[in-house]
């Protein structure tokens, strides 16, 4: 063991490498890696044509379309408003700013089921917001718009929290230099501030998107859950499970997982590439 450990790591006087890494790897394998590989092994055992038939039937396709489409819209909304909120919180002074700043993390702390029933009550036809929107012809609860709204709630902190520290660290000299060289405020924001925020924006967007795609608790109450219409992919997995259709649930879950992993990987690479390019200049 010690020979192996020496080959794998640099020597150090600090003890406990073997035991802590051992516990880490054991826990990781038992809790995360073995269960996740069980999913893929089960999917692999389905057989190619069975897998395609269950994973890509029309109901499943509609569910992926809704989960990924609505998550994209929600993440874009959060990208815009999240940047705005981060800007306001970092740059301006106003009463209640600290409370607002603390409140940003509410979607992390509030259980999703609670958020789900609260949003549904607000936007139901007789709810506080729903009763105002309904006469205008805007239906939120039990429609796709409701799904998007719940996803906006759940993804709200990500962009704010990834942009905020970068904005705080941004040196004022750069903006001042741009201004003294004759750039207008909008030019400065677009050409100087925005490019330095870009990596943070991308990662905030990606995290909000990934969270919204997999989200279940806050959505199912407000969605209405009509097959093919307002049925999200995670719900379809649960429905298949309740019908004891393990193969179907597994097929849909593995499609979702693969798409999420590929997306995160691409975004991760993109960010690395950008960062190394920025540092190279």
């Amino acid at each position: 063991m010690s020979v192996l450990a020496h080959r794998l790591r640099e020597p150090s006087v600090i003890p406990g490498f073997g035991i802590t890494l051992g516990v880490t790897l054991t826990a990781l394998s038992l809790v995360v890696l073995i269960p996740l590989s069980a999913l893929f092994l089960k999917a692999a055992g389905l057989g190619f044509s069975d897998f395609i038939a269950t994973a890509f039937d029309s109901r499943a396709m509609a569910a992926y379309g809704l989960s990924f489409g609505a998550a994209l819209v929600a993440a874009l909304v959060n990208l815009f408003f999240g940047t705005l909120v981060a800007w306001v919180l970092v740059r301006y002074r106003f009463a209640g700013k600290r409370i607002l700043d603390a409140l940003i993390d509410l979607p992390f702390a509030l259980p999703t089921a609670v958020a789900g029933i609260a949003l549904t009550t607000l936007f139901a036809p007789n709810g506080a917001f729903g009763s105002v929107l309904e006469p205008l012809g805007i239906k939120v609860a039990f429609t796709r718009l409701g799904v998007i709204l719940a996803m906006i709630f759940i993804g709200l902190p990500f962009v704010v929290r990834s942009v905020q520290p970068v904005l705080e660290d941004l040196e004022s000299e750069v903006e001042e230099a741009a201004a003294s060289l004759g750039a207008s405020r909008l030019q400065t924001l677009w050409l100087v501030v925005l490019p330095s925020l870009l990596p943070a924006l991308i990662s905030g967007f990606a995290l909000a998107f990934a969270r919204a795609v997999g989200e279940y608790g806050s959505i199912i109450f407000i969605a209405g859950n009509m097959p093919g219409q307002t049925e999200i992919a995670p719900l379809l997995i649960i429905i298949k499970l309740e019908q004891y259709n393990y193969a179907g649930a597994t097929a849909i879950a593995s499609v979702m997982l693969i798409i999420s992993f590929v997306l995160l990987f691409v975004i991760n690479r993109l960010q690395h590439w950008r960062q190394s390019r920025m540092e190279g200049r």
Partner: protein
Amino acid sequence: MTSNSSRNEPLLVRGLLILVALTYLGLFLGAPLVTVFAEAWAKGPEIYFKALGQADSLAAVRLTLITAAIAVPVNLVFGLCASWAIAKFEFRGKSLLMTLIDLPFSVSPVISGLVFVLLFGLQGWFGPFLAEHGIKLIFAVPGIVLATIFVTFPFIARELIPLMQEQGREEEEAALMLGASGWQCFWHITLPNAKWGLMYGVLLCNARAMGEFGAVSVVSGHIRGLTNTMPLHVEILYNEYNFVAAFAVATLLAALALVTLVAKSLLEWRYAAELNSVKRA
């Protein structure tokens, strides 16, 4: 903050941006939070407390507390081991290890529950073996605990690793040279240095453990009084149109969320310097 004219927008623009930010946060964060308490107390305190005092509600509270009491310490031990191995040693495959630890973040909660059904459910890999020996994991408390550990797995490690990496290993090395044992080193140097980051991680881990819905929903079986956690109980009550009771239980979870946010903000304000690396990670 430098309030230089070249870094500041006109008063009107500033006011408008603050207003937009306040409206956005009020709509998506403030309104749902207020709704939870308003709906719970809509029929008066007597009905509120009666709803909370029901045997099923109390059983749900108890199960949620038990689940968190197991999941949080397990993840605490794992987090400490992982951060010790990763922060105090250089070894090959470190970044892969960190990616794998983060994996549960990008897995849908529903899929997190599904993998345990595939392993331990009646049709699962170990299902027949477990059934033969009369062990029930799925649709029972152990399954709920397992799914919760999976979902909250990265929380504490994720806070500790960047913090301990930032603090380096000089202090530990010095103590070891002076003859301290590995344990003394850990208890008297590493742990005190990391205590606020540790608390931060425990706080977030606990909030998620108590509030998890999707993953737990898949493995619980929803047996009232036996395998219902608080978030699941909220769902059942809501679906039975017992809105006051649903929101009454929801107030407990919302209160937990608020306490978490307050404690988290206090930690961030008091120990900003110690936690800086965490916020930036």
